[in-house]
């Protein structure tokens, strides 16, 4: 069972990474949700013993590599974001799905804010409010997944 879960964690993280590697361009790139962070947050709620801050950091490094930016930007953003998911994990699984949605949305925004600050240090300008659109599409994707029956850990305290 545990092995099975680990395998699905690795597989989904890998799939998220491939999604990031797709040749996105134009409007799709602006709207592209952060697949990796969504998958990480999902597993943090669902299987906190197998997926943790370390996993997020490691996957962040790969995303850094794929984006071609400075090493450690995504790693840092994911580390801090997942930390806030981990410390509230026990409460999160008891939340209603709306509450959970709001919290996940704020986590997505947080990771983008951290990246924005890091980019500002590197001398880049803020490119307008459309920068935050991936958080919106991300939370939509989350909601669609929940509607389609994906268990985001909400009832995992029962069994």
């Amino acid at each position, binding site marked *: 069972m545990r092995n099975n879960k680990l395998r699905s964690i690795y597989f989904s993280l890998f799939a998220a990474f491939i999604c990031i590697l797709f040749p996105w361009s134009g409007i799709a790139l602006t709207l592209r949700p952060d697949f990796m962070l969504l998958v990480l947050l999902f597993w943090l709620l669902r299987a906190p013993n197998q997926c943790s801050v370390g996993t997020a950091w490691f996957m962040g490094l790969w995303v850094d590599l794929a984006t071609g930016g400075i*090493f*450690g930007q995504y790693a840092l953003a994911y*580390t801090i974001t997942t930390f806030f998911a981990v410390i509230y994990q026990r409460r999160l699984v008891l939340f209603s799905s709306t509450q959970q949605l709001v919290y996940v949305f704020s986590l997505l925004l947080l990771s983008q804010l951290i990246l924005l600050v890091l980019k500002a240090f*590197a001398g*880049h300008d803020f490119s307008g409010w459309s920068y935050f659109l991936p958080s919106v599409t991300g939370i939509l994707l989350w909601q669609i997944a929940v509607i389609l029956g994906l268990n985001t850990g909400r009832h995992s305290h029962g069994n």
Partner: protein
Amino acid sequence: MMRGIHQNFDQQQAPAFFARGPSPLARLTFFTALSLALMATDSRLQYLANVRENLMTLLHPLQVIANAPLQLYQNTDEYFSTHHYLLAENTRLKKQALMQGIALQRLNLLNLENANLRSMLDAKQSLTETSTLAEIIHVGRDSFTKKIIVNRGKNHHVVTGAAAVDAKGVVGQVTRTYPASSEVTLITDKSLAIPVQIERNGLRAIAFGHGRDNMLDLPYLPANVDIKRGDKLVTSGIDGVYPAGLAVATVIEVKTTQDSPFAHIICAPTGGVENDRQVLLVSIPKIELATAIEALNSEKAMPTTTAEPATTNNAVHVNPSTQTTQAQKPAKPLSAEKPAQKPLANVESRPHAQQ
């Protein structure tokens, strides 16, 4: 017995149900420190360039897999493209070939004439460049930088610093090379500067990427500078990176304000920076450049008392050591075709380019 139970209880102070290894806060601190260290190392030192290169090699098959759907779509699209479309394209290409054929005939003549004139003036021959055709794999995934990844790399003798051009003009410059791919920073990126010349009057300047809206800036030019709307910018070739005379941009706006001593000039790139699928990577051989630097240094060593006052401003140009430290902008402002005693007199713009 009681003692046994007690001991047992002691051992289970942290029941297995709650055991999660180090506390989240400890993990946060550790991984944050690690990320910050990595960022510092990567941005300030060059140690991680090799690591990145190796990891990118590892990543390449995944990239190919990820690109496969789009590739398949484009291939089928091409296969099923209509008769009408192909005919139209054929006519357009024929027309283009004809026009270029005429230009080419003149080019041969001009080349011959140029070579003759150069030999008469005893000037060095201009550099011959090598080029590789590359296809864009994907555009950068970072919305803050303007970069594209192309499918030619070190294995195909692409070098860092090579210019990327398309049929209409300069598109960018190769900033990182991996074994099977390389990263091209577009001229609209904020970190890229390109030495240009106004086609109309030969005025030299440096064009900087605007960063956000696919435009170029011509900063640090005085308010009374002779630049008009519609002027064409071409590469000056004095950096030894871009071949001279390639189209770069067209001036679309010149603004002067009372409170600034500089003109505010905005240009639109001529090359299809955003809508190409293929680019040509043009590089000028390193050896010739090295000899050019050597020649220049030996000239510098000789006491030149007849030098004009402008040379003091130009001192920063002829110091190759300060130039080569700039990894991002390998724009070395000297070329083999530069006549010996005449300094490059773009006094206003050059020193700013070093910042």
